[in-house]
């Protein structure tokens, strides 16, 4: 155990040096690190959200609603088709994942079946699973001339999947507008999205950006009666609906609008939206693409003098009167908005609408001030723990304790180097893990030193005592540390976020402690032993 071949010494030295080099970026300022990238692509350790401040949110996408939307559209389409062919039907409705309708006259069934079959949308083939490439509905004829148009399993799965992907895209665009560094947006499971946005000044503001579906449509206001009349009588004209106003004012808290259901122009055709000022008021100016511009132009040309409603997520945000046909495809949304509100609205409109509703199922935001405090506290605790342990080791084991202390310093460099090199995330519990490692790292050395003491008591020479000490202790060191490592492994797989950070530093710490105790300390003591050739070991 006391022989070190030259290449082994070299290897240990290289590893220690690597640890120091990998740690260096942590001591330099961000600018220096960025400048260094070209010739030394190293980075400082990756700080977790609880140390940097930022938002962490887990969202659930209501994929069921996307299926419902398809079924609603299908039901509508069936109605249109059957009416167009003058086919009499009854009992048109949705049951489960299918649209069902009963054809009154048996001779129409053939035609109806054909027409409904044509309503199917073709699914793009899925190169991964080899499925797809077929129609998304299966049309069957049941008893009593009942036609059933069922969404296929493939279709449902694909729609849900694409709803999730599209949601991620929209959220990514929205968050990019905030200009933060490296946000994380990833899918989790079949219907969840994880968002991590570090460095947000006010993390709670993220909700306003990510939450709203932001579906914008333009609809005509129904002028056949006032909203008040419709509400009080409880009777709404066919093809119209009552929508609440987005802004409640003190004197009109429950203001509603009576609007036609039919969508004149949809936000899907928006090309751009900007927050700007008009006559000193904050407004959102928007521009449609060619399709949208045409629709907008037609709608305004046919309805000059009438009010139309700009509806966002089923709430009316503005209802201006059409003064002249707008053929250029651009316009302005004005109302009693604040500057922040128009900025947020512009972001939402530019990024596009979410295909389905999102619900926040978990949220952990940390403000930047707490993050900085935590780092400072962690640093202090680390240094004090370090100094305390070092002094204790020297007091207890003298020279050997000093060797263990040097190994401890190298140990810290190795841990920080590993974290920086792997770009693992350091969290507050992670710092706790490092401090714990400081306390436990000396254990391996203690095991050896106590063994050496015993061997001396048995009367062995310094050389023999050290040799036997290391040999006997190695098995125990391995056994003891493997078990703690297993615990860290489980924590790593089952934990998330901060807990994962703790498991990472604990795991890395165990590996480096065993390494430094068994190689670095041993090497130093061996060199000292050879040079000094003492009569007795000062332990």
């Amino acid at each position, binding site marked *: 155990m006391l022989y070190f071949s030259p290449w082994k010494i070299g290897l240990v030295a290289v590893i220690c040096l690597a640890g120091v080099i990998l740690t260096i970026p942590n001591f330099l300022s961000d600018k220096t690190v960025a400048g260094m990238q070209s010739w030394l692509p190293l980075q400082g350790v990756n700080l977790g959200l609880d140390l940097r401040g930022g938002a962490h949110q887990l969202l659930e996408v209501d994929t069921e609603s996307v299926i419902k939307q398809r079924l609603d559209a299908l039901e509508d389409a069936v109605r249109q088709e059957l009416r167009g062919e003058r086919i009499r039907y009854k009992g048109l409705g949705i049951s489960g994942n299918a649209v069902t309708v009963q054809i009154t006259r048996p001779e129409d069934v053939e035609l109806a079946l054909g027409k409904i079959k044509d309503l199917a949308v073709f699914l793009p083939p899925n190169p991964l699973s080899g499925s797809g490439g077929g129609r998304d509905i299966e049309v069957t004829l049941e008893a009593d001339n009942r036609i059933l148009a069922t969404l296929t399993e493939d279709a449902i799965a694909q729609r849900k999947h694409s709803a999730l992907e599209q949601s991620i895209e929209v959220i990514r665009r929205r968050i990019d507008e905030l200009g933060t560094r490296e946000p994380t947006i990833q899918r989790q499971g079949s219907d969840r999205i994880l968002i991590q946005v570090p460095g947000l000044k006010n993390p709670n503001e993220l909700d306003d950006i990510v939450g709203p579906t932001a579906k914008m449509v333009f609809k005509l206001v129904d002028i056949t009666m006032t909203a008040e009349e419709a509400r009080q009588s409880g009777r709404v004209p066919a093809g119209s609906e009552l929508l609440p106003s987005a802004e409640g004012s003190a004197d009109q808290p429950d203001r509603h609008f009576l609007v036609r259901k039919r969508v004149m122009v949809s936000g899907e055709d928006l090309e751009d939206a900007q927050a700007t000022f008009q006559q000193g008021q904050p407004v959102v100016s928007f521009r449609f693409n060619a399709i949208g511009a045409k629709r907008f132009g037609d709608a305004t040309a046919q309805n000059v003098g009438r009010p139309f409603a700009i509806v966002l997520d089923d709430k009316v945000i503005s209802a201006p009167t059409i003064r002249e046909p707008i053929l250029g495809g651009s316009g302005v949304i004005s109302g009693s908005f604040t500057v922040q509100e128009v900025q947020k609205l512009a972001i939402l409109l530019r990024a596009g609408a979410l295909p389905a509703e999102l619900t926040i199922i978990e949220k952990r935001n940390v403000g930047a001030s707490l993050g900085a405090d935590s780092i400072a506290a962690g640093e202090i605790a680390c240094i004090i723990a370090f100094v305390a342990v070092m002094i204790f*080791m020297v007091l207890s084991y003298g020279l050997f304790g000093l060797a263990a202390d040097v190994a401890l310093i190298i140990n810290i460099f190795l841990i920080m180097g590993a974290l920086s090199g792997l770009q693992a995330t350091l969290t507050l519990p992670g710092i706790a893990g490092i401090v714990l490692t400081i306390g436990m790292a000396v254990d391996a050395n203690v095991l050896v030193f106590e063994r050496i003491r015993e061997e001396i008591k048995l009367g062995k020479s310094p050389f023999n005592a050290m040799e036997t000490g290391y040999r006997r202790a190695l098995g125990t060191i391995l056994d*003891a540390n493997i078990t703690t490592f297993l615990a860290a492994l489980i924590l790593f797989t089952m934990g998330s976020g901060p807990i994962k950070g703790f498991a990472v530093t604990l795991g890395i710490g165990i590996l480096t402690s065993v390494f430094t105790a068994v190689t670095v300390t041993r090497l130093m003591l061996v060199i000292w032993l050879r040079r000094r050739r003492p009569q007795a070991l000062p332990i």
Partner: protein
Amino acid sequence: MKLLRLVPAHTDIRFIAWRRIAMAASVVLFILSAVAAFVPGLNFGIDFRGGILMEVGTPGPADLGRIRTGLGDLGLGEVAIQEFGDADTVLIRIERQPGGEEAQKQAQDKVIAALDGMMPGVDYRRTELVGPKVSSELVEAGAIAVLLAVLLMLVYIWFRFEWHFGVGAVIALVHDVGLSIGMFAITQLEFNLSTIAALLTIVGYSINDTVVVYDRVRENLRKYKTLPLPDVLNQSINDTLSRTTMTSMTTLLALVALFIFGGEVIKGFVFAMMWGIVIGTYSSVFVAAPLLIVLGLDRKRLEAEDNEAATAAE
């Protein structure tokens, strides 16, 4: 240089002689812990119960009473307010709202609006919201993690030593985890995800300690072939006493530094680990070792196995 010796070079403390008292005490404490886990029950944090947690920095010393009434008026059910660390940091906990995920978000919005109104310039240092779905998932994950860890340890020790040692180690582990949970129940410290992390660390450390003792027992069984088992155990514990004390001391030193200087957020976590170090060390000496006697460790059989392994290796 005169070195610091916490433990004299040669000790002969009759640990095993106290085993009956120690085991009785352990059993009593374990039963107490089990009862305490239900009465008064654990103070589950929002990670496992769902709800809202906010740490806010108030401009100037916080008026807890005012905040309590202000938030209580919102009709959000149980609202717990307490000072957190210093006079101008307040920890607000709001229980899980009935009605699923959306309701939690709305409740949080109400609280933020109310706080902004009461104290303009309030600093939202940390906000956490856990809905019912995620909280039940976390409970499951936490329980599985602890069970899995204990199981893994059993397998490993069984593999490295043999089954008496494995069972002894696991019983000591269960004892440690049980008493730790009991400690949380009695002190009503918040029991959340980081507590699970602390428990797993305790599992790791306790096994670490137990293995060192067992290792020595195995060695001494071979060395002192005629010594009765209780005496071998005693010898082993005394042999490793120096190392056990040293390592516990260094680890505790580090943890105390963390407890005092590491900030308020991880205090509960660190306290749990400090407790774990103490309990882990106690259980290695007074639970894991004596259990080998109770479990009927037959050294003749061990020897026979050893000889078999030796001849097979030749």
